[in-house]
């Protein structure tokens, strides 16, 4: 395999793995902060226990996000040195700001939150988890500003053989950010909402800690419902926006080879990239025109026409991303989104009255099995964003093939690929084991206390 393929594989694996932990951090930090705020306001011990239980799960997830994020910070230079040279003038700035503005707050105040229970007034202690939550989401903003430039370059000039920043303001207010940031963060909130719903459902089914998990459920259901509705709404607008700004990506996601008016929406299709046709295609007439333009009539430009236009614009080359994976990723993401909206609505309906929830055992079981789904949707969404842009690493400016490190050999990339994959695999097993253990045990036994010294002089929430 070539260095390029291996480097791409490595970026895909390490980034997808990192993003297993990020969405839950984004949402669960906010939920835990709300729980502790309620504890401070009401003095109700159940809220304190809630904070402890969900906080412990948050922490092991956060730790995984932090350590896998280290690789993210350095791998641009390792495998993508020519990308770093070409883009550093623009890409480095948001990364450095992310570290200065967000990572410092996050890491510093998380340490204070974990260890500071008996050293700080309650309100200050609750404030620290809010700072962690805000900083986590701020870090998402800055990394998405960086990614948005790759999707839609703005505020730059080509000079000295590289992209140089001409307007920081334009980079920061990239219109792409206004879709990508809320869509990503809210899908993180959705992930966390359904995580809490699923784990709560698990315990409600076993009639354990009913009060605590009923409250967790009711908090999460509002959070999940609002988040998932907003995520899908923004996702729809984002799709329409991409039709205009990255037409190839959307055409590929719809496997739309020919330009059509009106265009039908393919529900399922067999896709042949070689002949650039769909041998089998089940379409809803006019639906794609409607999704793209809010009208059942309207032209949707096909892949072939965009390819021809790109050749005109950028010179000879293949500008078509892998269509079938795009097509199916999109459908998996949307399908999961539909189920999550439905599940959140049902959960809200079933939990509106006290005691009506526990009887719905089949629905509760379904919620437990729903926990992995937002993760799959997150992955497929990012897969679309990153694959749909190919062959570009920076849309229209630099091709992925010319971004890899010339001084690194395929063998070296393979070595680190195996190394990271092995380490990540072992950590996944260890983290999965711990998560399941804590989830099954429930709130009482999460306390790490072998010495028998009680809470009264405890340094942390868990002593």
């Amino acid at each position: 395999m070539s260095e390029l393929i291996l480097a791409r594989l490595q970026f895909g694996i390490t980034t997808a793995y990192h993003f297993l932990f990020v969405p839950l951090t984004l949402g669960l930090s906010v939920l835990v902060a709300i729980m502790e705020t309620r504890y401070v306001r009401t003095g109700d011990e159940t809220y304190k226990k809630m904070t402890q239980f969900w906080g412990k799960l948050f922490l092991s997830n956060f730790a995984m996000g932090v350590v896998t994020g280290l690789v993210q910070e350095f791998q641009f230079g390792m495998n993508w040195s020519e990308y770093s040279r070409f883009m550093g003038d623009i890409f480095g700035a948001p990364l450095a700001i992310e570290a200065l503005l967000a990572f410092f707050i996050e890491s510093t105040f998380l340490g204070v939150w974990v260890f500071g229970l008996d050293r700080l007034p309650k309100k200050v202690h609750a404030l620290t988890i809010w700072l962690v939550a805000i900083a986590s989401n701020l870090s998402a903003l800055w990394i998405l500003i960086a990614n948005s430039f790759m999707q839609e370059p703005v505020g730059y000039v080509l000079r000295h053989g590289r992209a140089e920043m001409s307007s920081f303001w334009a980079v920061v207010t990239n219109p792409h950010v206004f879709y990508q940031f809320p869509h990503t963060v809210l899908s993180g909130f959705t992930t966390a909402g359904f995580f809490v719903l699923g784990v709560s459902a698990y315990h409600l089914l076993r009639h354990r800690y009913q009060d605590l998990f009923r409250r967790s459920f009711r908090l999460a259901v509002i959070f999940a419902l609002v988040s998932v509705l907003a995520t899908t709404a923004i996702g729809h607008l984002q799709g329409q926006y991409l039709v205009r700004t990255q037409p190839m990506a959307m055409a590929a996601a719809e496997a739309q080879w020919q330009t059509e008016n009106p265009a039908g929406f393919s529900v399922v299709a067999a896709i042949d990239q070689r002949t650039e046709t769909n041998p089998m295609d089940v379409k809803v007439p006019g639906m794609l025109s409607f999704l793209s333009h809010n009208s059942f009539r309207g032209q949707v430009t096909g892949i072939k026409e965009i390819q021809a236009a790109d050749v005109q614009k950028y010179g000879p080359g293949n500008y078509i991303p892998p269509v079938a994976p795009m097509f199916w990723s999109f459908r998996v993401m949307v399908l999961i989104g539909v189920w999550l909206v439905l599940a959140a609505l049902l959960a809200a309906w079933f939990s509106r009255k006290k005691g009506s929830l526990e009887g719905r055992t089949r629905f509760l079981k379904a919620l437990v099995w729903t926990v992995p789904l937002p993760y799959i949707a997150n992955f497929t969404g990012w897969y679309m964003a990153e694959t749909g842009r190919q062959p570009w690493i920076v849309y229209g400016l630099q091709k992925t093939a010319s971004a890899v490190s010339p001084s690194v050999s395929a063998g070296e990339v393979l070595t680190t690929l195996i190394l990271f994959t092995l380490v990540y695999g072992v950590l996944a097993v260890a983290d999965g084991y711990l998560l399941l253990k804590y989830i099954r045990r429930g709130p009482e036994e999460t306390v790490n206390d072998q010495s028998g010294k009680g809470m009264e002089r405890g340094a942390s929430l868990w002593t």
Partner: protein
Amino acid sequence: MDLNTLWFILIAVLFIGFFFLEGFDYGVGVLLPFLGRTDDERRVLINSIGPVWDGNEVWLITAGGAIFAAFPNWYATLFSGFYLALALMLVALIVRGVSFEFRSSDDGVIWRKTWDWLLFGGSLVTALLWGVAVADLVHGVPINAAMQYAGSFWDLLSLYSLTGGLALLSLFIYHGALYLSLKTETPLVERAQGAAKVTGIVTILLVLVFALLTYVQTDLFTRGGAGFVLILSALALILSYAAARRGRSGWAFVLNALTVLFLTASVFWGLFPRVMVSSLRPQWSLTIYNAASSPYTLKIMTMVALILVPFVLLYQGWTYWVFRRRVSSKNLHY
């Protein structure tokens, strides 16, 4: 002073902060299996850095981000050039980072032993590799006219760079022992002081050998006051050791902080205005000018840094104040 110089200094400051703060974290990690005889004692050791290690590590991440933002060619050449070494360091940092959280999450004896040793190994490898990397930066590495690293992994390992690795590792262990002398109670505090006495003398020897080799093998002593600052670093270390012998751990720690400060400053001074020295031809070296971002980006980043850095210093300082007390087995998280 132009902005290129300012950013060079700022990155030096970030590395000083990183080596000073993470230095004792690495040291505590390496000392863990030797000083902590029972599980409770090992928990105390880990908890002494528990609230702060993650925030300390952000100094490294920020330094990485700052290099990327201000000197993209430095970022590109350094990380693609030191490829396998950096990958190894990342794995060590990952393993070390999760050890804190994972160790305390289960009380099986084998489980805890495993994470203890991974914490030890991760800290040791990282500290060693930092020393190797710093020595290589001072010495110069094969960089061609196209700013590409033209050597292999083995070119990074030499008598000089390995001495640098051992010297920095030893310095960090000594640093960690002094930190523990301030942060723990009997009987750990006595053991930490004992460890400081042993590692202090080893560190002095290694740092002196490293300084001698630097004089023989590199151009550092010909570059302004860099050599003088390196000698100051060795002097501070000797004074620190003298204080440690008299049981004045506070003074020893402060003086050793100066050692770290002078050592890092000397390295950066010796490099200036280069950021990576080419051992093939001097004119192929990367400098703060040919590796830099555009003046506009440097200006933007300067404003951002001037606004944000004071806040970072303020609230990180505050956390050390909150956790100023010694750690006993009565209040532990990890």
